[in-house]
């Protein structure tokens, strides 16, 4: 498998197998989503109409239309759901960055046996079930749950406050679940930094905040972009967290897509929602990929 030594056949196998798999099961499905987003919802199995029909005389009648998309634009329900999803994902990403950066910095600057232990502690919750960790917050945030108990015991509130099924609970859930995704790339970027640069700046009289702003921060930018990408992009389409922690009216776009598909069985609209979501996410995804590719080229 080593480059330059292997036969053409081995090379074809190494490149071709994963390429073929991802092509069939990742790329082709997107084309199908696009196709079905242009079709009409019908009562049939599967519940969508053809894009064209050929009648007895051989005339081809085009049935494809952008009706589903104009429906998405006209009904403010969908626009609001997109806006809410993007807003929620954005603020969650900012909060995760504000918590994650000092964590990653602290871990990267810790002494050795500690550094690996802390790093493992970041990774560990990531390996336990995501669904179960979201459910844990449902338990904690309940009206008669431990958090309300603590708040009352501290005298902050007199009676249980509604925390579960609020937007606050959604933010909490997203920041909590995606924090490891933020910390890991940040850690990798900060750990690689050359500390002699910081020392030089300090020797030349720069105060610590100045060293941080003009050296550490810009040099860890690839980590920031990767971390924010890993949090923001999936969070926009998040379904489990708003479904479990948010109120019944917390219509984020991932939840809307889910309901269009499972509750309304409207596959064409669900596909149109997916296509529109991808249009929003194309720029962040490209940005993420560029930084991924750059980091990989090191």
């Amino acid at each position, binding site marked *: 498998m080593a480059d330059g030594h292997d036969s053409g056949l081995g090379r074809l196998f190494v490149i071709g197998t994963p390429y073929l798999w991802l092509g069939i099961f990742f790329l082709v499905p997107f084309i199908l989503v696009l196709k079905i987003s242009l079709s009409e919802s019908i009562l049939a199995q599967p519940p969508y109409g053809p894009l064209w029909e050929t009648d007895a005389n051989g005339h081809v009648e085009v049935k494809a239309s952008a009706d589903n998309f104009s429906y998405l634009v006209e009904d403010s329900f969908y626009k609001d759901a997109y806006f809410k999803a993007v807003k929620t994902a954005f603020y969650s990403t900012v909060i995760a960055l504000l918590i994650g950066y000092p964590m990653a910095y602290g871990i990267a600057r810790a002494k050795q046996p500690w550094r690996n232990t802390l790093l493992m502690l970041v990774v560990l919750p990531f390996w336990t079930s995501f669904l179960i960790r979201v459910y844990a917050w449902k338990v904690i945030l309940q009206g008669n749950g431990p958090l309300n108990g603590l708040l009352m015991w501290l005298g902050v509130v007199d009676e249980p406050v509604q925390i579960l099924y609020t937007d606050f609970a959604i933010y909490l859930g997203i920041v909590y679940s995606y*924090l490891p995704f933020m910390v890991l790339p940040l850690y990798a970027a900060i750990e690689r930094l050359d500390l002699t640069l910081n020392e030089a700046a300090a020797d030349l009289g720069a105060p610590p905040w100045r060293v941080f702003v003009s050296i550490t921060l810009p040099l860890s930018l690839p980590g920031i972009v990767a971390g924010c990408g*890993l949090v923001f992009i999936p969070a926009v389409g998040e379904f489990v967290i708003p479904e479990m922690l948010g109120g019944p009216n917390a219509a984020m776009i991932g939840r809307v897509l889910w309901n269009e598909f499972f509750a309304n069985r409207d596959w064409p609209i669900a596909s149109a929602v997916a296509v529109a979501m991808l249009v929003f996410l194309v720029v962040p995804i490209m940005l993420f990929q560029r930084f991924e590719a750059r980091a990989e080229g090191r």
Partner: protein
Amino acid sequence: MNVRLYTFVSFAFAFLYLPIVALVAYSFNASPRVTVWQGFSTQWYAALLDDREIMQAALLSLKVATMNATFSTILGTLAAFTLVRHSRFRGRTLFTGLVAAPLVMPEVITGLSLLLLFVASESWFGWPKERGITTITIAHITFSLAFVAVLVQSRLATFDRSLEEAALDLGAPPWKVYFVITLPLIAPALVSGWLLAFTMSLDDLVISSFVSGPGSNTLPMVVFSMVRKGLSPEINALATLFIGVIGVGIVASVLLARRGLSVPTR
């Protein structure tokens, strides 16, 4: 500065672990009301083992997770070799994109698009006749292989090629070099990759829900429908078992290969 930084880091870790500790504690609670403490009991573990729906779903999930982990480790490793060792071939940019995109793609989109593929493929080729264990496994491999590829890739990138070159110079055929030198050296990353793919599969709700058919409910799907109806102490017990098994697995793999627990993402 340092004291403040590490106080903050400690709080952040407390934030990460508090919910997990709470679930484990509540799983031993005698009260059927999830949040009222009424003394120590292991009754929810017994109830869990008696629940046929959960046990069946757990079996299905374990089967899918094992197959997924194995196949996505193979495919992910091939993808990693492609990314690190083959810098020039036609369509490389597209390939890089195809490997990176599943890492961030919202699950509802991946799930919907794969379902549409399976439905279309059934009408074109008559396959798959029904959706279930096979379609769920294929869907899981598609997103897991990307994570395995990232793990193995970071191992390969810091890999000393001179050992391979020496073996090749001494006349070893490439396949032998691969199995005797390359594979053992990247083995820790493969183990981490396998475990990561296994856990991700065991955990997936959204994509499985889209591509499964009637009668093939995975464990997260059953848990999700139980949680929707309300809190259940059985789920706390299930969560604790889950955390226990994974915790033991992780610690074991770290002890086995000190560098085993590589970072899932860069």
